[in-house]
């Protein structure tokens, strides 16, 4: 169970880190190397994104990674294989991240069965709210997979409670309006927001925002359980190479 893994891990660490990557970008070989690097740097769990042609919740950096991965031949089948290999090779839990249509075209049943077979822990599907996801929830439940849902600053309290009731593993709190990859100001209002999130869920809280330094991660200690590092690692890999990614992550954890 994802949640219990996280709780256990939190007994020894004040805050966990989750990283993100787009599978097949720039190639599956580099993707594998990246996972090795990240795991070696001590990250606690990972989001593996199956690229989609219409990633509406992603900003320019991840959007570009999606497109490049597709252009160089990433398919859903290759991504599932890749994710399975990673889960087999590494000890940390892996989540899939993608958009509704990827799951819908495979069928929720087959998709979740494959996830289970490949030992994946759960999934984040930003354009699949629970209201549209009855089949998804049922199948995820049947295979004991964690459907991760998202809290946002615009989510009212009663809806947080509802989301909490269907979520498993943890809750992903987006720290601000907008898509992935924009910077966030650390502010009082963030404090208030995270306190509100905490009040509305029994699950661990992951927070995604522009983490670029250890002090950003430190800020989250006591306020959340998991710091999510998304766009920044892709940027580093693109501009300074794999080594820089490892150094960056090592310094964070």
């Amino acid at each position, binding site marked *: 169970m994802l949640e219990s893994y996280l709780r256990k891990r939190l007994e020894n660490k004040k805050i966990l880190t989750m990283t993100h990557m787009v599978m097949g970008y720039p190639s599956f070989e580099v993707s594998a190397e990246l996972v090795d690097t990240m795991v070696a740097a001590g990250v606690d769990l990972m989001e593996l994104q199956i690229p989609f042609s219409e990633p509406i*919740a992603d900003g320019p950096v991840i*959007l570009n990674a999606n497109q490049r991965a597709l252009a160089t031949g990433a398919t859903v089948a290759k991504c599932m294989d890749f994710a399975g290999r990673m889960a087999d090779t590494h000890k940390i839990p892996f989540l899939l991240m993608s958009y509704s249509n990827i799951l819908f*075209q495979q069928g929720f049943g087959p998709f979740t069965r494959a996830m289970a077979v490949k030992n994946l822990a759960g999934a984040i599907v930003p*354009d699949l709210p629970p209201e*549209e996801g009855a089949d998804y929830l049922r199948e995820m439940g049947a295979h004991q997979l964690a459907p991760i849902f998202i809290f946002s600053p*615009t*989510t009212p309290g009663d809806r947080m409670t509802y989301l909490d009731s269907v979520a498993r593993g943890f809750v992903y709190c987006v720290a601000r309006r907008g*898509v992935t990859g924009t910077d966030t100001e650390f502010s009082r209002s963030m404090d208030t927001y995270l306190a509100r999130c905490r009040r509305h869920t029994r699950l661990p809280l992951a927070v995604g925002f522009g983490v670029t330094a250890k002090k950003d991660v430190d800020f989250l200690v006591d306020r959340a359980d998991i710091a999510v590092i998304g766009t920044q690692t892709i940027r580093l890999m693109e501009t300074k190479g794999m080594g820089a990614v490892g150094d960056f992550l090592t310094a964070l954890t």
Partner: protein
Amino acid sequence: MNDNAYYGRYGGAFIPEILRATIKDLERIFDAARSDDTFWPEFSGLMSSYSCRPTPLTFAGNLTGHFSGARIYIKREDLNHTGAHKINNVMGQGLLTRRMGKNRVIAETGAGQHGVATATMAAKFGLDCTIYMSKTDVLRQRPNVFWMERLGARVIPVTSGSRTLKDAINEAMRDWSAHMDTTHYVLGTACGPHPFPAMVTYFQSIIGEEVRTQILKSENQLPSRIYACVGGGSNAMGIFSAFLADDSVELVGVEAGGKGLETGQHAARLCADGARAGVAQGYKTYFLQDADGQMKKTHSIAAGLDYVGVSPILSHLHDTRRVRFTAATDDDVIAAMELAMQKEGIIPALESAHAFALAFKEAPALSGDEIIVINQSGRGDKDIFTIADAFDDPKWKSFIIDHAAQYHA
């Protein structure tokens, strides 16, 4: 989401959590407006004083004679302010934006008509305005870009994805996710998450309501067929909706056949193989996609039809067979346009010319007692660069070359 968000299997609101409160808000505002007795009169009053509603239903005597089949009528949405039916929806959403107290609007645009309409509405309502337009469309619809900018809008060329309408929609959604507190997203067609398909159809239904009154007045009889082109589906839903309950009225949606359905270079989602139900851009409908669910490249000579999805309402009407879907190729469209110009002195937009092409193909087989109505969703002025090239006009070419030479000097 609630039940009225679905049309059979299609529709819904597949949106990031960040947008949910906004979409709910919009739904509430729209429902309140719709059930407020003063709202429709306010809307139609605005359309008759700012645009020229009701737009005429023109009897096309020469085309009727030419085909010696059905009596052909043309609904003249081209006469609207800004040159297309898009303004109906936009002004309606402008009224809602005011009700929501927002001070900024954003929109996607393909042909540029929706962008010009939105920029126009923003000027009229005193709102900030940003328009997302794919790089490809910025190039092929440059005059419209020029006018949007002059009207005070910012036009952002979208270079991601396949650089067509869908990518502009994605970018608009991203903007909206960041600025929904101040910003309303004026979606331009009967697509996207609930309540957009219902809302856009509601505003565009003014077309069909007028046609119904007009044809009963002039012919005392309902038409046998109504033809509309189908991009996202707003002009089609606009004219069809008033006749859905009349079984005797056949409704024909004409998609972009591009270079021919067999070439794969088209944008036919409902009448061709290769489209399946899927979820993207916030809603479920037929999409042109590969086995993995990745959206395919589309092609049409008409920027406004070059779209990978289609209104979920039309997908449902396709499955229930209430609407017949068919396609016209780029070549059909140019020929139909030429005939319409020379016989009736009207210049349909390339989008609208798809409806003309099918009507021309089918009119001869109908009897002289029957009536068909073609929805001329817009005028072709905006398409001059595309059409001049389609006709390979040497004088146009040398004009452009000379004009460019001035700029080099």
